[in-house]
């Protein structure tokens, strides 16, 4: 799921729950900021795909190659965009509840867990592969509700979030 629905749904949650002060900070940390973990994979991604060279050599604007690996299939697109590269880290998988829940207990607030679950919910609407229990299990899933188009789902989430924001 792209960053905009995460920002909007977190903002909607903040408005709906009437959060203030540190709670707002916690909501955005666990609802949005964990997506920064994608940056960790940038060096690996650059090493794996030499994007421009590959797209030019293939000379095709859309899907130019499917890379089958044991875990899943990468779709290599033109212009250097690689769909289904595993950008996610365990920081935004259900396994992270092992540290998010204790942290919630420590701060004495359910905000981290609630907004983390909200983030997970959106991500699991998208159809890319996820490893919910990695590194303890290699089980891979695309999650529920992956049948319809992601753009449509994002639009619906954005609309609902905007309604909540403006109604509160």
């Amino acid at each position, binding site marked *: 799921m792209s960053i905009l629905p995460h920002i909007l749904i977190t903002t909607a949650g903040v408005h709906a729950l009437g959060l203030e002060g540190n709670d707002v900070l916690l909501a955005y940390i666990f609802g949005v900021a964990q997506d920064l973990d994608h940056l*960790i994979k940038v060096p690996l991604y650059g090493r794996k795909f030499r994007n421009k060279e590959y797209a030019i050599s293939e000379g095709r604007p859309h899907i130019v190659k499917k890379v089958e*690996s044991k875990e899943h299939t990468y779709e290599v697109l033109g212009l250097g965009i690689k769909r289904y590269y595993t950008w996610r880290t365990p*920081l935004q998988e259900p396994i*992270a509840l092992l540290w998010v829940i204790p942290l919630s207990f*420590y701060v004495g607030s359910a905000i981290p867990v609630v907004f983390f679950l909200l983030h997970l919910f959106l991500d699991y609407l998208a159809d890319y592969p996820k490893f919910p229990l*990695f*590194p303890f299990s290699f089980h891979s899933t695309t999650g529920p509700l992956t049948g319809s188009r992601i753009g449509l789902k994002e639009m619906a989430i954005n609309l609902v979030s905007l309604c909540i924001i403006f109604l509160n």
Partner: protein
Amino acid sequence: MYNLSELRRKKDNVMRPFAAWAHEGLGITPKQASLFSFCLGTGAVVAIFGGQVGIALLFLVFTMLVDGLDGTIAREYAFQSKNGKWLDMGLDAVNEIMLFFALAFTGYAEFKTAVLASFAVVLIRTIRDTSGFDPGLKRVVLFFGYFTSFELALQIIFFANIAGFAIGTVITDYKYQKNIDKT
């Protein structure tokens, strides 16, 4: 924060003469060292209940010294086994949890903090071998707590190990991704 294998190598260099004395001189095996370390740790727990925190920390010094011997003896004399590793890891965790709860029972720390710190020290052990990363802040922080407060020490233990776990999962994932990207 440190790299586990590098730390083990450095620790073995320091502990080698003591390990030789313990194993060749006294015939101590790694498992015996683990059990003896646990007994000393239990002594620290008893001392806390007796209101002798200073003596408890003295016990803790010896606990950690003996605990450092088992791994070195195992590596130097080819005693390494999965059972031995689990025994050492399990006894260390149980000992730490006993210490944290002893501090909570005697009013030096809150129960909530003791529970969270206990959970965190168990959690970090589930990932440190695959990630090769461990913040190393467990029992040793109690010495700091003696001069400040044990409540603060347990909070540090909780934070360091819960963060260590989260970082450990990312390191493991990075290593795995690097590996599958080669294919």
